[in-house]
């Protein structure tokens, strides 16, 4: 077990009111898997094994991991393009993710859609469309159904700072506010929309807008996975108890280019350097080390899992050309979204003592 000087004491780290040690490790694992899978995918992309383009969420792992971890099996998610950890937490395996990137038959969309454009309907997720932030309205509609049926469930979706400029952001925020819906909006403020800096996108931080729609807006350190969890857990509590929507602004930084081709020339080097110091994985790892967790072993485990997944995915077949024309329409009965995995121990504890 690593114990360098930087390692805090358990007392310094402290207990977490809602997260048991296993939960805190799960969060870390999800982030490690996200980063590891995306790094692997990137190298597969460089080898020409990932068609099209490739997007990742390097440096933003805490945003999706923390928020998704607070969601119950019956909750519904629309996961965006920087949020791989959310898929992992809901139960999508590394093999299926890597197969998805490579357009293989074993991918979540079986090659129909690409890279991050997927969601496993069996796990309660609606895959994103490219048009941003269209999924905000889908999440709003799911929440509307929950409220109409009187169910204690919520819908959650992510979207970027740039996406807030589009009309659908407004229509969703307004509708959710008017109907006081159980929906959680996570604004992933990673400082850029492709190459566009914040000041070209809005004159005022969009989190300020939540109040003008009649609901809560909170700003969170998007690079602290436990802070993200706390914010999402509270937002969910508010949602399922009839308190209405929450806009969570997760402040983070996109540490890679918009996509594989983007050299990020437009980003000042200092800005990147500064954010490197706030890497969400390093921060959680430090916490865990302080709690006596063998983080090295954890990393090794995750790497091994990804190696195996990559091998399995690479061995998988491409979809058959004949299948290209199938499934434009649903032929049988429509089947709603299924429930996802929800590892947080809180869901196995009575609500009072979460």
């Amino acid at each position, binding site marked *: 077990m690593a114990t360098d000087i930087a390692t805090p004491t358990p007392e310094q780290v402290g207990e977490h009111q809602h997260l048991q040690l296993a939960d805190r490790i799960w969060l870390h694992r999800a982030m490690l898997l996200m980063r590891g899978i995306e790094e692997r995918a990137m190298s597969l992309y460089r080898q020409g094994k990932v068609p099209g383009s490739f997007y990742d969420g390097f440096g933003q792992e805490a945003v999706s991991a923390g928020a998704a971890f607070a969601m119950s099996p019956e909750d519904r998610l629309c996961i965006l393009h920087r949020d791989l950890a959310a898929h992992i937490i809901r139960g999508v395996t590394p093999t299926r993710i890597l197969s998805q990137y490579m357009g293989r038959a074993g991918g979540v969309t079986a090659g129909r859609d690409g890279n991050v454009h*997927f969601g496993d309907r069996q796990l309660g997720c609606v895959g994103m469309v490219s048009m941003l932030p269209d999924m905000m309205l889908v999440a709003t509609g799911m929440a*509307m159904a929950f409220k109409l049926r009187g169910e204690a469930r919520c819908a959650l979706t992510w979207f970027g700072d740039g996406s807030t400029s589009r009309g659908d952001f407004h229509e969703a925020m307004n509708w959710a506010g008017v109907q006081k819906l159980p929906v959680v909006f996570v604004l992933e403020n990673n400082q850029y929309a492709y190459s566009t800096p914040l000041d070209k996108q809005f004159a005022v931080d969009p989190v300020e807008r939540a109040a003008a729609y009649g609901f809560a807006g909170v700003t969170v350190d998007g690079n602290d996975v436990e802070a993200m969890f706390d914010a999402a857990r509270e937002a969910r509590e508010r949602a399922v108890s009839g308190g209405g929507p929450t806009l969570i602004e997760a402040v983070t930084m996109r540490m890679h280019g918009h996509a594989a081709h983007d050299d990020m020339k437009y980003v000042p080097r200092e800005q990147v350097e500064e954010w490197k110091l706030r890497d969400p994985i390093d921060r959680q790892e430090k916490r865990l080390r302080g709690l006596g967790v063998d983080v090295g072993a954890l990393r090794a485990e995750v790497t091994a899992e990804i190696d195996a997944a990559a091998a399995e995915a690479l061995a998988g077949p491409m979809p058959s050309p004949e299948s290209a024309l199938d499934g434009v329409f649903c032929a049988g009965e429509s089947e709603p979204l299924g429930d996802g995995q929800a590892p947080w121990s809180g869901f196995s504890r009575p609500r009072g003592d979460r």
Partner: protein
Amino acid sequence: MATMTYLQAISSALRDELRADERVLVMGEDIGVFGGAFKVTDGFIDEFGSDRVMDTPLAESAIIGCAVGAAVVGLRPVCEMQFADFISCGFDQLVNVAGKMHYRQGLAVPITVRLPSGGGFSGGPFHSQNPEALFMHSPGIKVVAPSTAQDAKGLLHAAIHDPNPVCFMEHKHLYRRVKGDVPDGVYETPFTARVARPGSDLVVICYGAMVDVALSATEDLDGASIEVLDLRSLVPLDEEAILDAVARCSKVVVVDEANLTCAAGAQVAALIAEKGFEDLDGPVVRVASPDVPIPFSPPLEAAVLPGVDRVKEACRELLAY
């Protein structure tokens, strides 16, 4: 059996669905307290409450997008566009979110979008549009367009039961002008074409409001035997029925009210030119609105919309071919 107007038939289908299936809800602008701009949902809110007869904000993208969300968690939303023209504001959610969902993810999106469409009453450029071709060109969306009261009810039932997004083109000009016997209770009209009048010398292929126009234009056309084929469904398009009619009649006039270029009629004509070519005894003649916005003033609108005279003339010329 009861005699109903086209509009009453639509109301009746909605009412039956709301009674029969608790998953069904109707949502749109001013459809609740006011009962809808055309009163299609008049009184619904009293029977079903404001949750299931939902007055929404003025936001078409949200209406479609929220309907999609509600549908994928088990509801059966029926959205009303106050006028079909306003779907332009919800176009992206319809074609990119709803239309492509099942192909991409195997996730069904059972929503129905009611589109009060068409001109003929000085609605002007923004209250007279026939946007069906836009949906036909967007994979994953079914499109139906009834011309009778009976089909209006049956197609709406079928649309709501369908596990896919369905655009229900209801022609405003038919609302109170078309009456007919409508079977009681819930029944489904198949998404296939219907021979409105059998014939052998020439077939007029049309749908929606143009069916009446075609029928009266060809009722007694110099004694010729003229078939009128009512497509009823545009997606799926009943290619078999179309080609069968062409085989029997050998001469074809395709009529639609929408603007000519790339309209539904263009697809029908192209289909015939490719797969019915050998049966043709003359050019595939088209009658449609020219490529102009539908003007407001009566003499202008009359000059643009396909009417009985233009259809008559087209048939006469083709018969003489």
